[in-house]
């Protein structure tokens, strides 16, 4: 597989604020990579540098085999979809799609055929003659995607394209983007701060923090095997428990006598935090020998499953248990037991 876009050691600062620090990642042909992180982590800056809207202080960006760092945005061969609705208000949907092709002086017949093909691809065939204000937000973003694809770019850059949409439309457009990206086979860099969105759409996720890459991996790897406490906390939900590290393989919940086995750690004994996913906690009978005892504090009904918050007796700490299908039987205030499956847990000082 060839690398369609690659960042090499890119640094960028705004005054004293470091937006990107030695940022490096490569997106392969046909792959969708998501840059995920909290606001201000540098993900949009990375995308804007790739597009040519920001100038990197150092480092290089290449598209295909050649460096584009010195090229203006119009010469980079990118397609971009923006967070805000970016369709040209004075042009119809068809004219918007034709814009990039007109710039490239593509013949009218070819333009018309390509626009029809793209409208088919984004399933908006009947809207060609409407103006942007006459179509919905979701449709506008689909047209924007089609417009970006119209110029047959080497790389597609998506800058939080779903953030202006409401929840239902968001999921629809997200799935549509994924389908279109797969069909077109174009290397795509997708920016979002929404971890659910990232997990659902990506081939790989690049989790960023303070301008640096924290972890790059498949959604499953990032979720199941977070390499840092930040990733564990940021991607998905996690039980963040105060523990006392007794040895390299055992901890005790604060103010609790029971020892819990953990994966081997290099940390020295002392105060620490244990990060365990809610789905790695089991709700069991209070009579279960290895169970921590507690009381159901809250139930979060989610349709097919329910999440249960259990206050562990004597510790003042609450453990969330997710995907509990039989939780309907555990009412608030009921005494229950919980078992932590710590095989994939992280122990950290922070």
């Amino acid at each position, binding site marked *: 597989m060839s690398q369609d876009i690659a960042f090499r050691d890119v640094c960028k600062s705004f005054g004293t604020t470091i937006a990107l620090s030695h940022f490096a990642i490569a997106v392969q042909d046909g792959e969708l990579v998501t840059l995920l992180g909290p606001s201000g982590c540098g993900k949009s800056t990375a995308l804007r540098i790739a597009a040519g809207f920001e100038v990197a202080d150092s480092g290089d960006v290449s598209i295909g085999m050649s460096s584009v760092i010195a090229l203006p945005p119009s010469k980079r061969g990118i397609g971009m979809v923006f967070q805000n609705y970016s369709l040209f208000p004075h042009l119809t949907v068809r004219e918007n799609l034709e814009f990039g092709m007109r710039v490239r002086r593509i013949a009218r017949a070819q333009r018309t055929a390509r626009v029809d093909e793209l409208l088919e691809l984004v399933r908006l065939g009947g809207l060609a003659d409407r103006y942007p204000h006459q179509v919905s937000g979701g449709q506008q973003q689909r047209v924007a995607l089609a417009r*970006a694809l119209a110029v047959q770019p080497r790389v597609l850059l998506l800058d939080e394209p779903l953030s202006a949409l409401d929840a239902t439309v968001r999921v629809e457009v997200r799935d549509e983007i994924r389908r279109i990206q797969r069909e077109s086979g174009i290397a795509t860099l997708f920016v979002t701060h929404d971890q659910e969105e990232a997990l659902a759409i990506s081939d790989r996720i690049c989790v960023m923090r303070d301008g640096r890459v924290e972890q790059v991996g498949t959604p499953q790897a990032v979720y199941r095997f977070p390499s840092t406490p930040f990733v564990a906390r940021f991607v998905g939900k996690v039980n963040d428990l105060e523990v006392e590290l007794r040895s390299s393989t055992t901890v005790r919940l604060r103010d609790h006598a029971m020892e819990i086995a953990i994966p081997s750690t290099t940390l020295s004994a002392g105060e620490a935090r244990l990060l365990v996913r809610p789905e790695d906690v089991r709700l069991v009978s209070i009579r279960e020998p290895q169970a921590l005892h507690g009381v159901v504090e809250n139930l979060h009904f989610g349709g097919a499953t329910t999440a249960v918050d259990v206050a562990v007796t004597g510790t003042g700490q609450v453990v969330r248990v997710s995907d509990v299908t039989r939780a309907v039987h555990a009412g608030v205030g009921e005494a229950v037991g919980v078992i932590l499956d710590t095989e994939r847990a992280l122990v950290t000082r922070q």
Partner: protein
Amino acid sequence: MRATRLVWWLVLVVVGLFYLVPMLSMARFAFQRIPVIKLSLDNVFDRWTVEPLFDTFGDPNFRKAALLSVMLAVATAVATSVLLLPTMVVAHLRSSRARKLIEVSAVLPFVVPAIALVVGFAGAFRNTFPFLIRHPLGLVPLYVITALPFTHRTLENGLAALDLRTLVNASRSLGAGWVRTMVAVIAPNMRASIATASFLAFTVVLGEFTIASLLLKNTLPLYLAYAQGQSPQGAFAVGLVLVVISTVFVALSNRFARTVKT
């Protein structure tokens, strides 16, 4: 509520009269073949004629002055759009400091007297670019500056109503350079503001007297001042027509502004 409405109507009527009475008086003076001293309510509808207007239209000096003024007005409107709009777009995108500087500079013509402007302009260009002093088109830069408080505000409102950065970035990402982005994306979305700014620039030029007088250019306002001595009725008739034209332009610009908002 009713009292407020009454006050509102009262203000409207007073303002309307303040505007209309002089216009009607001007119209009577210009278009009635009755000596001023004999004008009264009894002869409001007597002996109306457009002859003084046509007499003035027939004067070659008038035609020359009118043509020059219209040419200057068009050139000023075009120069304003071509120079000011791209400058403001770049300032919006690149530098908020430059934007503030333009904003402050734009109101300076309100406080700098026209005579100071002309003295500075003549002093700066008499030896370097004498063409600007000699040729009537040399007035255009001065008129662009004079109209700036109106044109800048109008264009600024238009730019503020656009998601400028996103539109520019979208256009650039599709392969368009700066010129195409300006012509094919920004200008069409600013057409209402550009039209309004052009109307205002046009109106300012049609009424400007001091600068043209100081630089000895025979524009329409200068002709009218001169014609008042020769044929006062004709001068007032043309003056009235100019007021009507200006009013139409202002109304049109308001209409455009409303179209933008909806």
